[in-house]
């Protein structure tokens, strides 16, 4: 008797779709030594990688969930229901023609401009676990820049990558870095030779495309002396009913005088657990900048860090988090000062909408008789509805009489008077709200590359729809 109403497909959220899955390799659900053997066999990995993974599995199993400080929601992750490895088994391809049609379609729907798809300085687009498409632009390769997937990196360039692999973030750093170390696949390995300044940002688009399938990318970027590189990752994910897990590890190594900028704009669907460990090692005079925008996901836990190991090294984290209904953005920054005259800067802006919750956790550490170290931290939170929530938990340790730290945090709200003023000029309540929120993050987004600040603005507008009234 009932007739389903005609659904009009509105392309509101370009991430909201999925493809039928046919995977050549599937490690099945659950995690054991067998899973790891399967992954190693399929990928043809060296024995040292196999034993590295197996050691990591033991660490993962032995570590408790960090619920003594983090949310109990972590206990809802059912590790036995997650598939730890899926792949199509294709070798990374260089020509556009080799890319499967449905992958091309993905690019289309992600809205990557035609010319960018072909000319991006080496698109590394990840479709499920393996790089389905990889194109290192000639110019970049000519300079000796290596831009490959993690599997290829470990296989073909062990002399470069093995030295730093797992050194910035040791397996046992936390439960999820251990998990990643056990089952990682995909992600990028980049090496920039001394003095090379990569003019175009290297980009990676990736997506989760299988139910209950967690992605465990492993990214390692090494910028050799005096080199410069910008890396961008952006992600959108299809919406599923059951939770998916994303647990990446990103390690950056900035050699003396190098500059690395790592930009993330993410918009996970609201069932994803996004538990990411990101850390950089900054040598003398180097600069590492993390730009991190977290929108979506059920729970994001991510605290990009910089270990300032060399004199005059500088670390920065600029982050924006938007927690909408049912979402918890638990983000922050870690600045570990380990040499004289190191400086760090953290600016974090969070927006809680509806019953969304945003949390800032920060750590600033200046131990042992360092001289001339400085940190500046600002975290501002904006609250939109009566049931939204925001928390701030910084931890600052300073030793010595020549270092200084400044931390400031504020919580404010979009006031009714402000909205009325804007309405009096003819803007609807929703437009006024969106304008205010964009105003709140504006001074930060100005520091982002153009296309990312535009995308972010669009995402915020989308998120603010229906948040008033």
């Amino acid at each position, binding site marked *: 008797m009932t007739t389903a109403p005609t659904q009009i497909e509105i392309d509101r959220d370009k991430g909201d779709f999925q493809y039928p899955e046919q995977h050549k390799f599937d490690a099945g659900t659950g995690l054991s030594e067998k899973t790891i053997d399967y992954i190693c066999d399929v990928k043809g990995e060296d024995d040292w990688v196999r034993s590295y993974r197996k050691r990591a599995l033991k660490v993962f199993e032995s570590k408790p969930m960090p619920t003594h400080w983090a949310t109990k929601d972590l206990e809802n992750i059912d590790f036995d229901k997650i598939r730890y490895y899926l792949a199509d088994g294709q070798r990374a391809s260089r020509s556009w023609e080799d890319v499967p049609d449905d992958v091309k379609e993905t690019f289309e729907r992600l809205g990557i401009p035609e010319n960018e798809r072909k000319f991006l300085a080496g698109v590394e687009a990840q479709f499920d676990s393996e790089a389905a498409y990889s194109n290192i632009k000639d110019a970049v390769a000519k300079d000796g820049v290596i831009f490959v997937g993690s599997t290829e990196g470990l296989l073909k360039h062990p002399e470069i990558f093995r030295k730093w692999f797992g050194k910035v973030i040791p397996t046992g750093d936390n439960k999820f870095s251990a998990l990643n170390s056990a089952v990682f696949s995909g992600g990028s390995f980049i090496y920039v030779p001394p003095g090379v300044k990569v003019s175009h940002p290297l980009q990676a688009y990736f997506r989760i495309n299988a139910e209950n399938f967690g992605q465990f990318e492993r990214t390692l970027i090494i910028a050799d002396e005096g080199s410069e590189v910008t890396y961008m990752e952006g992600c959108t994910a299809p919406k599923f009913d059951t939770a998916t897990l994303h647990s990446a590890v990103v390690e950056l190594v900035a050699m003396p005088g190098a500059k690395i900028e790592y930009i993330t704009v993410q918009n996970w669907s609201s069932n994803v657990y996004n538990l990411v460990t990101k850390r950089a090692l900054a040598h003398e005079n180097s600069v590492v900048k993390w730009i991190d925008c977290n929108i979506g996901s059920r729970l994001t836990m991510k605290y990009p860090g910089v270990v300032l190991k060399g004199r005059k090294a500088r670390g920065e984290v600029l982050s924006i988090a938007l927690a909408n209904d049912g979402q918890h953005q638990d983000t922050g920054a870690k600045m570990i000062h380990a040499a004289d005259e190191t400086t760090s800067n953290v600016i974090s802006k969070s927006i809680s909408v509806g019953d969304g919750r945003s949390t800032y956790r920060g750590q600033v550490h200046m131990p042992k008789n360092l001289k001339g170290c400085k940190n500046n931290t600002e975290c501002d939170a904006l609250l939109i509805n009566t049931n939204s929530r925001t928390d701030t938990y910084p931890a600052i340790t300073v030793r010595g009489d020549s270092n200084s730290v400044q931390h400031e945090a504020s919580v404010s709200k979009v*006031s*009714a*008077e*402000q909205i*009325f*003023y*804007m*309405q*009096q*000029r*003819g*803007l*609807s*309540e929703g*437009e*006024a709200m969106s*304008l*205010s929120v*964009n*105003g*709140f*993050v*504006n*001074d930060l987004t100005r520091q982002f590359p153009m296309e990312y600040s535009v995308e972010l603005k669009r995402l915020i507008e989308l998120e603010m729809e229906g948040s008033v009234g």
Partner: protein
Amino acid sequence: MIAFLDKMTATLDIKNLNVSIGDKPILKDFSLTVPKGEVHAIMGPNGTGKSTLAKALAGHPDYEITSGDALMDGQSILEMEPDERSREGLFMAFQYPMEIPGVTIANFIRAALNARQPEGEELNAPAYYKSLYEKMDMLKIDRKFTSRSVNDGFSGGEKKRCEILQMAMLDPKYAILDETDSGLDIDALKVVADGVNSLRGDNMGALVITHYQRLLEYIVPDHVHVLFDGRIVKSGDKNLALELEEKGYDWVKQLAETAA
């Protein structure tokens, strides 16, 4: 026929308006008609309902209209949302303009103008900036202001000039200027008044709310009304403002007592 009707109803017509804040009645059977092309001034001591009138007409949610009506060109505006009233052509210059951190003046006014465009259409950017700069020059506002956040860190004079700039850009049918002279020194007052005067004409009616006669030396009103305890107790021409200045507000109190 239609043109005739338009002419008949080209007024801002406030009829027996009663407004309360919480349980406290502020405006009591307030009536006033402002035809297009005229400037009416409302004067009165503090706390008699001047700002209430402005905010109630603009649709501020804290002000409850218990009875009466307000019609703009024959159409009641009381059921409209504040932004609808604005788009219909009602402008209010705030006594205390809000600060909107992070939103530049240029973007803000553009957003307000775009909200007036037909669905899917946007302003032509070069034309917009041309018109914006013209009006800024007129109001002696430095062009650098376009990239500053709305009212954020502005002086009192800058805020008020920014209000008049918005008025000039939005081209309203009726404008309510709520204590626009407060916080202005004499130079700033002249600039603001010049701005308002340049917008005067057959296409706009204005209601100037002020405590002091001073502003009315520069924005010469067609009619002056004296407000006391929520209602108009005396109306007259521009000379009433001078009389009021001379006799002081105690006189108004006496007027009100005689009226009652």
